[in-house]
């Protein structure tokens, strides 16, 4: 697959953020909850490269951990929902009408509520749990892959090329790899890039309304709320999570290339 210049830009932006996160987590001498009450709300300096927050915790460590958490969730959700959605989308067409109808009912149930409301309801069951967030977001996102894959596969299944492959006795996996995957790959890729952005956004949104990841963990949306009261003393602190969220989402959007 060849990437366009803007897609390379998006990819480098994301890799840069990821590197920052990995290096920050491994090299920073401070943990995310280690307080230094003599250095509260200090501006960036030699000891604390990004300054410290209202509890004297190193912002560098916290930002690195928060970015890592966001990427972990984004990538997990993308992989899970893409695998599930694509597999079920192809199965729905291939396995006949019964399966298709059963899956259609499931999809309609999930589409009956806005995604964020479903995630919020799940978050209510176990507040602050990363894994519940992961399950809820994946549950919402696989539907997109399912619908797109199903629509495209319907055409490919009927194509003479696929049918002659079938009659020549090629196996299911070969037919998928040779005929179906090339047709759906570009769409799945675009969806995955947008899905990554959406997963990160959803987690930040939940953190922002205080029902997502709970303190003292570092999470971008949560940090926005925590640092907001200190805006007039330390605007550079509030700017950090806001800028990073925008950069992450922008990176994924650039990577997607096409638009939703």
């Amino acid at each position, binding site marked *: 697959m060849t990437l366009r210049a803007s897609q390379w830009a998006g990819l480098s932006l994301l890799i840069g953020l990821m590197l920052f996160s990995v290096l920050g987590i491994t090299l920073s001498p401070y943990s995310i909850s280690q307080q230094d009450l003599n250095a509260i709300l200090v501006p960036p300096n030699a000891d604390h490269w990004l300054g410290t927050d209202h509890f004297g915790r190193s912002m560098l460590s916290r930002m690195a951990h928060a970015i890592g958490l966001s990427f972990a969730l984004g990538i997990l959700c993308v992989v899970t929902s893409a695998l599930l959605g694509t597999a079920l989308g192809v199965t729905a067409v291939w396995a006949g009408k019964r399966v298709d109808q059963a899956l259609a009912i499931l999809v309609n149930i999930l589409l009956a509520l806005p995604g964020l409301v479903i995630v*919020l309801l799940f978050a209510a069951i176990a*507040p602050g749990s990363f894994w519940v967030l992961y399950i809820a977001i994946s549950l919402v996102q696989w539907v997109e892959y399912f619908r797109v894959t199903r629509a495209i596969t319907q055409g490919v299944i009927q194509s003479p090329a696929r049918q002659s492959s079938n009659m020549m006795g090629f196996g299911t996996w070969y037919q998928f790899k040779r005929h179906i995957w090339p047709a759906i790959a570009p769409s799945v890729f675009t969806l995955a890039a947008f899905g990554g952005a959406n997963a990160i956004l959803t987690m930040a949104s939940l953190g922002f309304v205080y029902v997502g990841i709970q303190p003292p963990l570092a999470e971008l949306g949560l940090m926005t709320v925590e640092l907001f009261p200190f805006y007039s003393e330390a605007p550079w602190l509030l700017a950090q999570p806001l800028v990073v969220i925008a950069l992450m989402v922008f990176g994924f*959007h650039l990577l997607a290339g096409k638009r939703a």
Partner: protein
Amino acid sequence: MKALLLKRLLQLITVVWGVGTLTFVLMRSLPGDMAYRIAASRYGQDNVNSDAAALVREELGLNQHPLEAYWHWLTDLLQFNLGNSMVSGLPVIESVQHMLGHSMLLAFAGLMVSILIAIPLGLLSAWRGNPLDSVLMGLSSAIRAMPVFVIGVLFVLLFALHLGWFPVAGYGTFAHLVLPAVTLALSLAAVSNRVVRDSAKQTFRAAFYQFSKVKGLSTWQTFQRHGVRNIAVPVVAFFGIQLVSMIEGIVMIESLFSWPGIGHGLAHAIFARDIPVIQGAALAMGVVFVLLNTLVDLLCLWIDPRGVEQ
């Protein structure tokens, strides 16, 4: 038309069933004995003993079989018997009505402003083409990369804290409505101006459009007779898709600006684990979502009677 309405009706039933089941699971999965918890909130932490808990259990039928309890839960739901808030003790249905009204006001204002932004800008970039087109598209990409609450926070910082033009948060006067509505509008318009632009571009290039110009209609007449309706179909259909982001945006914006609407209520109820209110708020959102979707379907059918594109 009939099939369309039937499909939406089915969706409405799934919403009620889905929300009801999820909140039932939620209720059951809370840690601790429910009877003790309710007794504690009724009689105070110090006065709870096993007699009080037994009394509550008997009165509320908490010793039912889970399936039986589930059945009761659903039948209550069908009678709009949503119970009382666990925190305030007020009937849920009343507070949901209140919140819904406020949310509708915000949603309507946001939608109107977003239409006022998106349609002129979209038409302008289709009409003028580059370089204006590129500038506007770049701008909308940049805004789209920002989550709703980041736009909101920036607005609060700029217009409320620095310039002091509008109140930071709250509800009451018209000035309180401005920032939340504009935030919502901007996040919606950043997506829909592209749809307007694409749709307009396609129409302007179409053979029938060129022909009506060639046969001598003025630019304005062509646009009025052959443009508006054709451009409108994808735009209105897209609004149905955008409903999701509108409701999600409302949840975030209401929490940010302390707007006493349904999203704010839902977030608060989740934080306080006030399950009847969670159920009521989620239910109201789901029902409104389905109703608005139906409205969009009907509108599409009215603009283009040949049938709705899926």
